[in-house]
Structure formats: structure tokens, C-alpha cells
């Protein structure tokens, strides 16, 4: 399986969870430990090694804040 | 009756229903959408008609049809939507049908802003549509007055068979204020019959036609002269205004709607500085209370007249016409959603007085 890497422009995240809902690896979650300037818990990934770089998350993110890289 | 806290737009809608209105057509637009929203919920409860139209153009033409069919009918919108209604308003005026039209004004021109404004004074008082016509225009200054004037609006509309417009800045639509329901509700069944309405000949009467076509120039001229005579009658009989402290004032503020409040606040500030200022507030902006304003301005004590508006200066034309050059007239205002502050008004007053 390809391995991927996602980066979030967190200060622009609106915490809508669309990315969360479409990640096949189920590794995205909203980080409740922090609130961005807009008042939302931003999306994040910790187990990045499980990312397959499918770009589902980026494709559905309405705010275009996710960048996906892949090997 | 006890006072209740009402949102302006909802109070407008409720006041219309209490005034016997049983028919509403409109299209959403900020800052007045709560009017159709309220109507959609409450009209059916009183057996009335609420219909959201496909556009403002359609709405005013539905009003035209419903009024012809004898209904007590209303529409509301905000500035751009009112622009789209101009052709229809001209038709309704020419066909001499009653209707109430509410304009909760926002800042223009164009898409502008949804913030409050008084930028449609010209449109309301001079007829934004084509041809020689007028509508009676009330310009209430707070929610209580909106409510108080609603019944009068429908009654004058019926009496003179013409639209009555109620214009107010968007703030009045959006804010909440205490309201007292002073008049008993009107039961539409108790209203006088409308013998001119097209409700079918029933095989009894001759076919009626509601129309605005007078193709022959003489007929057209006669029709216009007849309308004009009606407008002259209204000018004589229906002017309304309010004065506060204008007697022996050194300066007269003229303001309609919300800015009249600011003007009164400014007058109080001026009083502290030893300047006596009064406020003249037209309640009908058509017919405009020209003579009353002239009387106020012509007093020996008066040195200057200052109009206060939430636009770049529109009512000032009527003030000039009223004052007939007897005193200098100047303007202070803000347009497009900003409200002048009492301090700005005070400064303008002082400069008008040369201090």
C-alpha cells in the first residue's frame, strides 16, 4: 500500500468533519484539545503512517486546507 | 395593555394581520425576511393567504390581482426588491387599487449592504416608476409607531384606492422594542364592501374591468388629472408630522424615522451649550408637511435648518421646497448602513449656526 502524508492548514479549519467521514484509514479526528482562532477544533492526524495518500480528505474539504503527498 | 417586546419585522407582520390583512405575497430579502416568515406561520392560522412568490416582480403583480379581487393585501421587501416592484406599483396606482407596501430599507445603491439606510426616500416620495403617480408614504420612527400606523395604512389605501407605503430603515425591522397593542384588531368581514372589485358578474352586473390603459390622449389626460385631483386632496388632508421644542428655537432639525431620535439627542446636547434646537419630524413624507415646516422655519428665532438623514441627502429637497429660501438649509448624514452620531449632528448644527 502506498504511504501518504497530509498537512492541514489548521487555522482555517472549520471542524466540519467531512474529511473525518471519508478517510478510509479512519485516522483523521478533530483535536478537541485545541481551538483555533475561528473557534473550531481543527482536524488533525496523529497516526500519519497509516495514511494511504488517497486524497479523499483533501478532495472533500470545502475549505481547501488539506495538502496530500504520496510516495 | 401591557407592553411586549417585539422584533420590528414580526411586529409589522402581526400589526398587518390585526389590521385585517388576510393576504400577503412576498420574496425573501434581508433585512425584512422575518415579515414573510412570520406571515407564513400566522396567516394560515387566521384563514389568510401567504404565498412566497418567485420574485418581487411576481409578488407585486400578485398583489395587483388579489387587490382587484377585493382582498386586503400587503407585500414587503427591501430596497433592491422595491426597485423591481416599480412597474407594478405604477400599474396599481393607475388602476386605483389599494395595497400596503413595506420597504425595510438597506444601504444601496446596487447590492450595497444589508445594513440600515434611508436611501430610498426619493424612490418612495417621487415614484420610482413611470408616469404621474404618488403613493402615501409613512415613515415611522420606532416599532410602536409602525404598529400604530398599520391600520391607518390599510384604511387610507382603501379610502383613496391607492398603495400606501411604509418605509423604515432596516434597524427598525431587526431590533426589538416594547410594543403596546393599542387598537382592537380588525375583522376583515366588517370592512366595507368594494363594489369596484372583479369578483364575477354573477350574471347580475355588467362586466367590470380593472385596467390602466387609456390609449386616447384625452382620456389619458383626464385620467391623470383625476388622479392629480385625488393627490391634491390627500395633500390637503393627510399630512402628519410631529414637532418637539420647535417653538422659538434657534435651530430646527428636520429628520424622519430613526434619525429623528438622534436629532432629539443632539438637541439635548445643544441645550446644555445654551443653544435651543427643535426637531421637526414628518410622519408622512408624501404628502410632505410643507406648510407646517415653513411655519416652523419662518419663526424669527430660527437661524438655520439642518436635515439629518441616513443617506447622502434626499429629503433635503423637500426641506428646501418647504423653507422657500427663508432660512439656510444644510445637511448632515451618513449613508449605506452607518448612522450619524449625536455628536456629528451637534457639530453640523454648530457649523450651520456659524459657531
Amino acid at each position, binding site marked *: 500500500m502506498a504511504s501518504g502524508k497530509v498537512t492541514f492548514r489548521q487555522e482555517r479549519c472549520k471542524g466540519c468533519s467531512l474529511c473525518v467521514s471519508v478517510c478510509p484509514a479512519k485516522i483523521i479526528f478533530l483535536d478537541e484539545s485545541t481551538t483555533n482562532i475561528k473557534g473550531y477544533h481543527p482536524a488533525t492526524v496523529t497516526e500519519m503512517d497509516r495514511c494511504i495518500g488517497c486524497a479523499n480528505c483533501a478532495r472533500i474539504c470545502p475549505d481547501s486546507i488539506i495538502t496530500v503527498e504520496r510516495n | 395593555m401591557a407592553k411586549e417586546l417585539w422584533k420590528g419585522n414580526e411586529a409589522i407582520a402581526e400589526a398587518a394581520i390585526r389590521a385585517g390583512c388576510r*393576504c400577503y405575497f412576498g420574496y425573501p430579502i434581508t433585512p425584512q425576511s422575518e415579515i414573510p416568515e412570520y406571515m407564513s406561520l400566522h396567516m394560515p392560522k387566521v384563514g389568510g393567504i401567504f404565498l412566497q412568490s*418567485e420574485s418581487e416582480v*411576481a409578488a407585486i*403583480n400578485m398583489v395587483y390581482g*388579489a387587490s382587484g*379581487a377585493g*382582498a386586503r393585501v400587503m407585500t414587503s421587501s427591501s430596497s433592491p426588491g422595491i426597485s423591481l416592484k416599480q412597474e407594478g406599483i405604477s400599474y396599481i396606482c393607475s*388602476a386605483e387599487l389599494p395595497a400596503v407596501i413595506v420597504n425595510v430599507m438597506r444601504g444601496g445603491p446596487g447590492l450595497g449592504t444589508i445594513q440600515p439606510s434611508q436611501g430610498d426616500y426619493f424612490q418612495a416620495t417621487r415614484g420610482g416608476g413611470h408616469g404621474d403617480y404618488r403613493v402615501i408614504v409613512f415613515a415611522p420612527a420606532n416599532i410602536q409607531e409602525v404598529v400604530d400606523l398599520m391600520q391607518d395604512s390599510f384604511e387610507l389605501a382603501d379610502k383613496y384606492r391607492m398603495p400606501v407605503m411604509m418605509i423604515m430603515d432596516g434597524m427598525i425591522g431587526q431590533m426589538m422594542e416594547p410594543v403596546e397593542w393599542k387598537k382592537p384588531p380588525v375583522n376583515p368581514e366588517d370592512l366595507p364592501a368594494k363594489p369596484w372589485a372583479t369578483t364575477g358578474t354573477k350574471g347580475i352586473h355588467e362586466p367590470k*374591468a380593472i385596467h390602466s390603459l387609456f390609449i386616447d390622449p384625452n382620456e389619458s389626460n383626464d385620467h391623470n388629472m383625476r388622479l392629480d385631483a385625488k393627490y391634491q386632496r390627500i395633500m390637503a388632508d393627510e399630512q402628519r408630522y410631529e414637532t418637539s421644542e420647535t417653538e422659538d428655537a434657534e435651530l430646527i432639525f428636520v429628520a424622519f424615522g430613526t434619525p429623528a431620535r438622534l436629532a432629539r439627542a443632539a438637541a439635548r446636547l445643544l441645550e446644555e451649550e445654551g443653544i435651543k434646537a427643535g426637531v421637526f419630524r414628518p410622519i408622512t413624507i408624501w404628502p410632505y408637511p410643507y406648510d407646517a415646516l415653513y411655519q416652523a422655519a419662518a419663526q424669527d428665532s430660527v437661524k438655520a435648518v439642518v436635515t439629518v438623514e441616513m443617506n447622502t441627502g434626499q429629503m433635503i429637497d423637500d426641506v428646501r421646497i418647504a423653507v422657500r429660501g427663508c432660512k439656510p438649509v444644510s445637511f448632515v448624514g451618513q449613508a449605506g448602513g452607518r448612522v450619524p452620531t449625536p455628536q456629528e449632528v451637534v457639530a453640523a448644527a454648530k457649523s450651520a449656526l456659524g459657531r
Partner: protein
Amino acid sequence: MAIVYQKSKGLTDVELHYCPGCTHGIVHKLVAETLEELDVLGNTIGVAPVGCSVFAYKYFNCDMHEAAHGRAPAVATGIKRVLPEHIVFTYQGDGDLAAIGTAEIVHAAMRGEKFTTIFINNAIYGMTGGQMAPTTLVGQRATTAPLGRDREHYGSPIRMSEMLATIDGAAYIERVTVTTPANIIKAKRAIKKAFQLQIAGKGFTMIEVLSTCPTNWGLTPVEALEWLNNNMVPAFPLGVFRDITAEEAK
């Protein structure tokens, strides 16, 4: 001898102002006869448009309300909502209904407004002097299309019946013509059916009548009927485009 045909009581005695041989007059008769036969003249409100039929309010022997150009469906909506037990119809030209009044007719159909529209498609703006209509045929000359309507510039004529038939709220839509006595009888039948469905509360009904404008087509009235048959009928096929009673029957 018994009278087999005479002027309908659905028409007043006012002389029609239409040009000689203009089929507006024929359609007026059909509507009038229908109202007379259904015995609803005393209970009907007609809405006249702006177009050559602007004076229709003088001709029909029932209460009438004249609308602004294109807005007859909105006016009719206002009337019918206030007087749901009455019969309401609009009578509109192709400039009125298919150009400036497009939104109003589409939304009356969408809401399933319970009135009947008589749509006079004569492929031209008659009243204002022969300008191009949305229904003008490709190649047909008009005062604003002096070389004929150009498909590249203006597209092909719009077929309103087909378009409106896609809308659920439309109960009955048929296209007819009045070029021959037989077609006139068919047209009458269609108009009557539309009014009957209105009375039955089925929804929006419209009869499109392919009509002539001899004056602006530059033809004699008889030539105009022929031209209509040869040119308009192929572009605007006759027939029923929507009939919910047929669908309900299934």
C-alpha cells in the same frame, strides 16, 4: 330554420380591433363559447395581457383584469388565491408569455395554480410592429431580425408546451391551431377540457394556439393560414404534452 351558429354570449358587442383575418378573434370566440357552455361567465375573471389582445378586457363578457406585460400569471395567481371557487384564465401572446413573462408562467405551472392559460403563439410581436419573438422560426424575418432569425445568434424557437410539460404542477397542456374549421373544433375541445380540469381543481392548464399575424407576416389572412400550416406546425408539433387525467387513469 334553427340557428346553428351565432356570436357567443361570452363576448360583448364591442367591435374587435384586430386586423382583418387575425386569428386572435377566432380564439376569443372559442374561449367565450366555452365559458358560455360551462355556464361560468358570471363566475369568471379573465386576465388580459399586454400584446395585441390588450383590449381583451373589453371583449369578454365577464369580469376582466388587465395585467402588465408578461405578468398575467402572477395577477391570475393573486386572483385565484383570493377567489378559489372562481374560474380564472389568462390570455397571453408569445412575447408576453414566452419572453418577458417566462418566470411567471413557469412558476404558476410549478405551483400548480388552478387557472387556465390560453397561449397565442403567432411567432411574432404583433402589437409593437413585428419584432422577433422567442417563437419566431429560424429564418423568419422580423423587424428586429431583418435578415431572418439566425440560429447562431438567437438559437431556435422555444417550445413552451414541451418545456412546461416537464413540470409536475401542470395538469393539462395541449398545442392546437385554428387554421381550418376542423382544427377550430379540436381547439375548442382542448380549451374546454382545460377549463373543466381547472374546475375539477387538477392544477395548471394551458392551451397553446398556433395563430396568425397576417399584418406582420406580410401575408393575406388566407395565405397566413397556409404559412402557419406549412412552417409553424412542423416547428411546433400539435398534440397533448401533458394530461394528468390520462396518467391518473393508468
